[in-house]
């Protein structure tokens, strides 16, 4: 090595085009969907924020990860992660208004759809004409999706007849389609076999949608969906019948990275608000920013954000390159969600009574972030997966 050669260095910088994209997105977020706007939307339980959906449509964001040939921007996992982060900085959990259709709709159809399905759905998603919900979890079980699965799809002439119930179907009450997982074959050697994915029209006869109440993300609406002899035609089967579980596995890492990116955005929002508050609030004749204990809380939030940022971007970068990242994506999800919850909790402590107030965002971040320790996979189950990847026996 000659003396002129620069020492080897890891490059943590985004490429120029992505820096410009993040900057442009941040300006859009600050102007169109600032925190007080998000707060007003979120507090309206059972009122879906159609206006937010329309703003995302007008800006072309529903097409962010749709291939250019179908009218989208062709963004990859890293782009999705960066965008999800910017949205969640102000929207918190309401970022799912974008994420749900981008994941359950464009991602799944983009990967597994037939050409005909892509032509039918992807341009409609880009133009904001198709909203998707997701129907995987059942009332009888959360993480153990396959063990708890009672929903059946029976082959009939021209399609499938679906019976059963799904729970935590986000925004199903306003969705055009539900990405539905159902058992289509009982006679299989392993329970991973014989399950299928359907693009179920939400307005089909026999589909009953009941909104649930919950701690956070109130406006987004989460639903139980009951299917009684609901018919889904053959052309809305996604991928091969019976192969759904194997189709879902490659998208799991993407989903974990997306959830951890939302948590990273929440960490951004919490840190911003905490710093802004301590700089203006006075107590005992001083700005509270001068108090060491609060400085330590804020330093802790910044550390937690930095930790999550490194792990999320690393996982996204690995997935982008087609490298194995199951462990990294699971770790990022655990750390980002644990950190977002801890940070929002500290944020409330820093703001004191104002942190508990519905007129600030800390309580919203705190309520919204709590979900991500549970979904899309519990942090306990994610740790099981990490342990298994380390060669330990499967614990579940």
């Amino acid at each position, binding site marked *: 090595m000659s003396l002129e050669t620069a020492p080897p260095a890891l490059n943590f910088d985004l490429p*120029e*085009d992505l*820096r*410009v*994209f993040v*900057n*442009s*997105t941040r*300006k*859009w977020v600050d102007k169109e969907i600032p925190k007080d706007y998000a707060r007003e939307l979120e507090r309206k339980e059972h009122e879906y924020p159609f206006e937010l959906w329309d703003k995302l449509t007008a*800006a*072309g964001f529903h097409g*962010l990860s749709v291939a*250019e040939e179908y009218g989208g*921007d*062709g*963004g990859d996992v890293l*782009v999705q992660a960066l965008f999800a982060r910017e949205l969640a900085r102000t929207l918190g959990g309401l970022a799912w208004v974008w994420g749900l259709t981008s994941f359950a709709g464009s991602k799944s159809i983009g990967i597994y759809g037939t050409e005909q399905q892509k032509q039918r759905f992807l341009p409609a998603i880009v133009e904001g004409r198709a909203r998707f919900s997701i129907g995987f979890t059942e009332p009888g079980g959360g993480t153990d999706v396959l063990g708890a699965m009672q929903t059946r799809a029976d082959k009939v002439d021209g399609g499938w007849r679906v019976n059963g119930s799904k729970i935590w179907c986000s925004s199903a009450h306003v969705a055009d389609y539900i990405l539905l997982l159902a058992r289509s074959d009982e006679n299989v050697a392993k329970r991973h076999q014989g399950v299928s994915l359907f693009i179920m029209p939400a307005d089909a006869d026999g589909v009953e949608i009941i909104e649930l109440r919950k701690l956070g993300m109130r406006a987004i609406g989460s639903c139980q969906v009951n299917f009684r002899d609901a018919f889904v035609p053959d052309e809305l089967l996604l991928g091969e019948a019976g192969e759904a579980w194997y189709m879902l596995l490659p998208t799991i890492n993407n989903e974990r990275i997306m959830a951890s990116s939302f948590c990273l955005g929440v960490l951004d929002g919490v840190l911003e608000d905490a*710093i802004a508050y301590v700089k203006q609030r006075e107590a005992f004749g001083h700005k509270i920013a001068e108090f060491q204990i609060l400085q330590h809380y804020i330093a802790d939030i910044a550390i937690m954000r930095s930790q999550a940022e490194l792990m999320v971007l690393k996982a996204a970068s690995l997935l982008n390159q087609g490298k194995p990242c199951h462990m990294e994506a699971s770790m990022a999800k655990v750390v980002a969600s644990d950190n977002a919850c801890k940070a929002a909790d500290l944020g409330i402590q820093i703001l004191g009574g104002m942190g508990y107030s519905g007129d600030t965002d800390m309580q919203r971040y705190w309520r919204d972030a709590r979900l991500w320790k549970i979904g899309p996979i519990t942090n306990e189950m994610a740790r099981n997966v990490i342990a298994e990847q380390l060669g330990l026996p499967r614990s579940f």
Partner: protein
Amino acid sequence: VKIAVAVKIAASLDDGATLHDGAVDPADLEWDVNEWDLYAVETALQLKEAAGEGEVVLVSVGGEQVSEGLLSCLAMGADRGIHVEVGDEAGALDSIAVARLLAAVIGPESPDIVLSGVQSSDFASAATGTALAALLGLARVAVVRAVRLDDRALEVDRELEGGLVQRLRVELPAALTIQTGINEPRYATLRSIRRAAGKRRDTITPEQLGFDEPASVAAARIGPMAEPPVRGSAEMLQGSASDVADAIASIVRARVS
């Protein structure tokens, strides 16, 4: 129609910025396209769209930050960019120096319209656009809040004090300085950014433009910066709302009588 837009990549201070020896540590600076210039770029794009044809050329004087700033404006729809690379000298250049460098690039381009923002968010001299017009020998309208292309002329509304608007008609070629709020600058989408990465971006040095060194074209030298002195003259009023109101009223009465 050919439109040249002078774009500045302006600095802002990050949360932790402090002054040392009359200067801000470059590490404490954040860089972005000057807000006024975003409106100027959008104005250029709208004028080109209204004309149905044309070219929007961006010219920016600055250091390494310019590349990213030009890319974001190219992503809005501008056709090509020219970076006058002055390296670390950017902070030492006053408005006249910048205008001289811009004029050396824009003059040979022979644009029909030259646009810039009214001012920059960091130095706020509001001088570069006007100096540029003078150096190019162009008619100039400042603080423009509406513009319409009418064949070989522009109909322009400019902002005056007190909310008044002055309407002018100016023959091309002409130079305008653009006020914020004249339009809604478009956002760069991922696709437009990636397409813009393939657009032409030229880099030129002051030496190539015939200047010995960038600072030699400056009319003024920029001295050290300082925080404004803190004066302990604020009086904190205590008491109920009506007590405070009474106190304010008596202070005002004492000052105006």
